[in-house]
């Protein structure tokens, strides 16, 4: 469920989200999302739910709870194993989080990003480190699992500064941590600032060292690096995200949301006005869709699965797509192993530590 609203639009963010949307429009989008949900998922019994965006907590306690309640009336949530709601520190009040849990939420993902005022400022975040601490405590108090999102590799950021952020996060004791290197996405203000020379990206070597150091520190603290950017205490890996990496099916509701089922990938239209009209007039907000051939699906499956610690299980991929990766990309597999980037263990192709910093390049070789 993609709620596309934020209090401000951060300079690095390329999610489909909008700041300053008036109440009527918000209401219209939320009800269109519920319409879309009715059209596409009535009576469905999902295993995981993820409410993100955007900032769901920006809606406020009553509106968010009402929305979650309406959702629950459309889909059957009785089989849900994990129900995540994203929360931003400036709007994650105790009341909002409490009411959300009352509607079935089992996990909060808090956009902390950093605990340093300057770095929060650089990222345009509308909250302080204290707000984050408060939000974390409020989330904990509900009894739900808690994730913290952090960003490293900001311009000028030193290893010490990053490790200090990481250690503050660890002091909170979250169940899960997502640590992302700052990326400069095309079309964002940050990307433009870098292009104009106002901002200089951190050196590659430093962000690589930060990535490796993060894995070491979090490993020592008992967090399993189950995916390239994701760390979890035992049994706390995010099931919803794992489903993405394993090529599972999911329905994305809302402006710009993405869906997948059996090799058919589709994306909703991003603009709010168009989204409203399409849901109303066409009963479908899909803007772009592709059906992957078995061969492309097989290639994609390896690419995605390599991000996960268990790697790409070749027999599973053969069963899923009907194409044996050993036949389709045997040479690429051999090359990745020869280069010392991957290993084949119990039928699964996995990244080795030496390959980790190059994961994208290695995975792209299979596309």
């Amino acid at each position, binding site marked *: 469920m*993609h709620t596309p609203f934020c209090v401000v639009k951060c300079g690095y963010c*390329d*999610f489909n989200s909008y700041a300053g949307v008036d109440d009527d429009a918000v209401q219209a989008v939320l009800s269109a999302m519920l319409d879309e949900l009715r059209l596409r998922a009535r009576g469905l019994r999902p295993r995981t739910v993820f409410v*993100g965006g955007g900032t769901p907590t920006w809606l406020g306690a009553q509106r968010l709870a009402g929305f979650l309640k309406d959702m629950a009336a459309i889909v059957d949530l009785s089989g849900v194993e994990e129900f995540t709601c994203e929360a931003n520190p400036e709007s994650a009040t105790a009341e909002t989080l409490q009411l959300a849990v009352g509607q079935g939420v089992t996990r909060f993902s808090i956009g902390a990003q950093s605990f340093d005022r300057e770095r929060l400022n650089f990222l345009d975040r509308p909250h302080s480190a204290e707000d984050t601490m408060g939000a974390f405590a409020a989330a904990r108090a509900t009894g739900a699992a808690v994730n913290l999102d952090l960003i490293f590799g900001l311009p000028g950021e030193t290893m010490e500064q990053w490790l200090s952020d990481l250690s503050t996060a660890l002091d909170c004791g979250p169940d899960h941590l*997502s640590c*992302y*290197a700052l*990326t400069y996405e095309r079309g964002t203000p940050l990307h433009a600032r870098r292009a104009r020379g106002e901002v200089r990206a951190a050196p*590659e*070597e430093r*962000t*690589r060292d930060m*990535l490796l150091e993060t894995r070491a520190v979090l490993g020592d603290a008992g967090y399993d690096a189950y995916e*390239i*950017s994701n760390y979890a205490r035992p049994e706390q890996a995010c099931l919803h995200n794992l489903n*993405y990496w394993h090529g599972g099916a*999911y329905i*994305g509701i809302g402006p*710009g*949301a*993405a*869906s*997948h089922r059996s090799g058919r*990938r589709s*994306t909703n239209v991003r603009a709010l006005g168009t989204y409203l009209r399409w849901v109303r007039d066409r009963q479908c907000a899909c803007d*772009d869709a*592709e059906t992957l051939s078995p061969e492309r699906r097989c290639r*994609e499956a390896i*690419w*995605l699965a390599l991000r996960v610690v268990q790697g790409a299980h070749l027999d599973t991929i053969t069963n899923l797509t009907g194409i044996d990766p050993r036949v389709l990309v045997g040479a690429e597999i051999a090359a990745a192993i020869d*280069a010392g980037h991957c290993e084949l263990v119990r039928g699964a192709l996995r990244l080795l530590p030496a390959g*980790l*910093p*190059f*994961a*994208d*390049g290695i*995975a*792209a*070789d299979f*596309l």
Partner: protein
Amino acid sequence: MSGPLTQRIRNFSIIAHIDHGKSTLADRLMELTGTVTAREMQAQLLDDMELERERGITIKAKAVSMHYTAKDGNRYLLNLIDTPGHVDFSYEVEKSLEACEGALLLVDASQGVEAQTVANAHLAEVAGLAMIPVLNKVDLPTAQPDEAAMEIENAICLPAEDCLHCSAKTGVGVDDVLEAIVERVPPPEGQSEAPLQALIFDSFFDDYRGVVIYCRIVNGTLEKRQRIWMPGTKTAYEVLEVGHMKPAMQPRDKLSAGEVGYLISNIKRLDDVVVGDSILIEKGERAEPLPGFKRPKPMVFCGLFPTNAGDFDDLRKALDKLKLNDSSFSYEPESSDALGFGYRCGFLGLLHMAIVQERLEREDNMDLVQTAPTVVYQIQLDDGSEREVHSPSELPDGSQIRAMLEPIVKLSIMIPAESIGSVMRLATDRRGRYVTTEVIGHNRQMLTFEIPLAEIIYDFHDKLKSVTRGYGTMDYELIEYRQGNLVPLRVMVNGEDVDALCTIVHRDDAERRGREVIQALRKEIPRQMFQIPIQAAIYGKIVARENIRALSKNVTAKCYGGDISRKRKLWEKQKKGKKRMKMVGNVEIPQKAFLAVLKSDD
């Protein structure tokens, strides 16, 4: 009666710079003479190849016959012979002009005379043609007809008051152009009773009828079922069909002295016909061949290699096909240690090279790696023997070379007066020797240099455009081969000598060029998982060296909200870019790097 009287024939061509409106004027002439109706008229009828239309130039000459009733009440046959115009095809231009008695010198009234106009006007003068200066686009608000007429007088020595004014676009003044053709172009001379003598000025390949020849009958008559002889290729044929181009082929019984038309025999390959060759009778009283015949020789060579070794056979097929329609292009197999199997291809010039490569990539969907273009060097060896070198990698060991000669051209550059300083610097930096300056018009001058062809074959034209803010135009012709102190500049990537990156440079420039090449490669070769040293060397001595640092990280954060399609498409696009790279040893070198060796950052 067969055919119009010789006195009523006018054979002419149009000389013009790119975009000065040649095709539009040709269209208008055909329309006014009723050769084609406005409805049949496709824009740019004479330039019918897609690529030519896009580049705004005519590559292959064509001819069209038009009937025109002049103000004197007589009906004339006007044969318009289209010329390719560009310097790369100057031999073909020459032969087309030799088929005429007159030429329209078409100049854009807002642009004035350009270097190419002067060069072609000079060819027309040598061929002894009557020239009619025509100022086009006089309807434009920016037109300066008086200024342009002055430039014509200064640069080409045609009196300013002889200039006709017209707008080919609106049709204004085009009547006067037709009348001037009748009045000022002399009728062809020649005897229909004399033995046959005809000039081949162009040919093309028709999928159904084989080779179609365009010719001008100089003396005698050319008839159906006649046996003919071509002395240049030493072959005999039977004439199957002759006729006029209107502009579609219109068969006739015969073509007589002074006429222009087409000829079809049973000729299978374009290679069997050479522009400039003569057509004579096979048996009986045979006339002398027409003078000035030669086979045009490729001036510029480059290697073309398939990016995927498996596509070699497809490349061969594509080149075979291309050769069917372009006999001036040559190719022979070449093998490179770095690039594998490909072809060494010869072209008349740079434009010709660019056109061929584009056609291969567009029409045959080939992914090619092109090596840096090179001129033809003449090498004199210690044992007294001589040889031609088309590729730097063919150079013999330095100790065996007594002398190396390189082609020198006369380079004419037409520029606004304020650019003289920067153009001087540009040319002299590239070993140009200044010859003269001519004042052509108010604020326009023509500079002449002697310069090695090798110095202008890559980015010279771009640089000229940039230092003259787009106003400079250039033209060149080969004058001679001269000895130069030349050395091969070799390039090592990751310790491996990459033959395809080798260039031949002047000894005095070698260090500087070496540094430039290494800098350019450093920018073009992407970082890989290990450090890559790149070095430039002359006869084993390293003159420049740089390291490409190893790539240390290549991993992104996440696939946002399950939007996997977007990320995958991004990666697939990058992967496609990677496909255009060539593995040399264990280093991936992109196509652009092979050309970067000629680029200079000045």
